């Protein structure tokens, strides 16, 4: 499986015009915006949802449902299943928003953690996951990181993520991509890549450390 494409090399060749400005603006407000009134931040909305505030729930849904579905579709590909998972994610948010603790991380990270987990659970519940076409997965990734249809802020995030990803070795990058965007477990990855489990873990760890440092994430 050494033929898996190195996304950075391929992505560098791609140049696409930026997205329509209207669509971009429409998506601006889904980025966590610290300057917003506290009640309107993702964290503030989650706090209100935890108190049973249905209007806050609707607001939260309108703000982030396209990010949730975007990530789920990235993992599952199937539109109908992805909408189902998105529904599960929001019901889980409704029922367990009280568990979100702003001292332990951002609201968006909490939501995306719930999202990623639900999508991965869905993949693993179906045996088809083992047969997914890796190469197609990686090719889609290049498109995503090209970031053409993203808003200004998201495109900026994307640029940062792209740049950060390019600082990983190709083996680290492959491991991070297979795990996060492919939904593969350690043992599946070891099997696919034909390497020992310990090596998978090490690559993931080193890749994530590099990403974290490049993206400037600190506690």
């Amino acid at each position, binding site marked *: 499986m050494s033929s898996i494409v190195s996304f950075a090399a391929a992505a560098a060749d791609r140049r696409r015009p930026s997205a329509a400005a209207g669509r971009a603006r429409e*998506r601006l407000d889904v980025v966590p915006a610290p300057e917003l009134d506290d009640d309107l931040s993702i964290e503030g909305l989650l706090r209100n949802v935890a108190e*049973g505030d*249905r209007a806050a*729930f*609707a607001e939260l*849904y*309108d703000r982030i*449902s*396209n990010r949730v*579905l*975007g990530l789920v*579709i*990235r993992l599952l590909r199937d539109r109908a299943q992805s*909408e189902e998972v*998105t*529904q*599960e994610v*929001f*019901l*889980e948010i*409704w*029922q*367990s928003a*009280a*568990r979100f*603790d702003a001292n*332990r*991380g*951002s609201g968006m*990270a909490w939501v*995306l*953690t719930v999202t*990623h*987990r639900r999508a*991965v*659970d869905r993949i693993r519940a179906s045996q088809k996951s083992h047969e997914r076409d890796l190469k197609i997965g990686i090719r889609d990734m290049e498109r*995503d990181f090209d*970031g053409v*249809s993203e808003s200004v802020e*998201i495109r900026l995030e*994307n640029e*940062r*993520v792209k740049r950060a990803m390019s600082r990983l070795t190709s083996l680290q990058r492959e491991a*991070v991509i297979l*795990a*996060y965007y492919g*939904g*593969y477990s*350690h*043992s599946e*990855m070891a099997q696919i890549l034909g390497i020992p489990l310990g090596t*998978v*873990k090490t690559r*993931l*760890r080193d*890749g994530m*450390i590099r*990403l974290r440092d490049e*993206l400037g994430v600190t*506690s």
Partner: protein
Amino acid sequence: MTESRDDATTRAASYAVGALTAAERRELEADLRRSPRLASEVREFTETAAMLGLATEPVAPSDSLRAQLLGAVETTPQPSRVVRGPWISRPAAVLLGAAAAAVIAVGGTVVALEITRPTSAVEQIVAADDYERVVHEMEDGGSVTALWSVSLARAALLVKGMDDLPSSRTYQAWVIDGDGHAAPAGTFVPHDGAASLTLEAAMAPGDAIGITVEPAGGSSAPTTTPLVVIPTA
């Protein structure tokens, strides 16, 4: 907990990108409270992973998903004030579908939830542009939620904590117009104190919604003082 730096970092990285099995995941979450180092690594890697999540192309869900969800939260109870568990906890098992019953573990307590798929009428109302709702808290702790859309001329009631009635009696809803005329809008029998009802009478702007106790089978005009009258204007 004395976990080596390397070990905590390795586990946390795999956890954040979802590469752990369900069993490994639970084990790690149980360790979070005992190991500040692990918790800190998990926090950082989770934020890092979220940036990967935000790097995917956003996709807008269908309009029907929004309507279904907003309908579902009207009828889906939240667990009563949850004991704070670890930041990231095992997701609650939520079943969707007609009257699915789910049992979820919340901070060590098991809570049974009845999740009723909303009726399409409620979905239509909450999806309307002019959807409005009022919650009326009863003195005895129950509550009546009125939902309506003037453009659809439809309204629904969701009640909680209502007393059981003898079988010779029933609750009845009314749509009351500006002149005080009450049109019968359907009867209901709460189950465990809760019921939902799409009103049979059409709503006009300014109408009020009332509930009375009537003889079984309902009445053509109210025969008792309303328990509650909710103005909609």
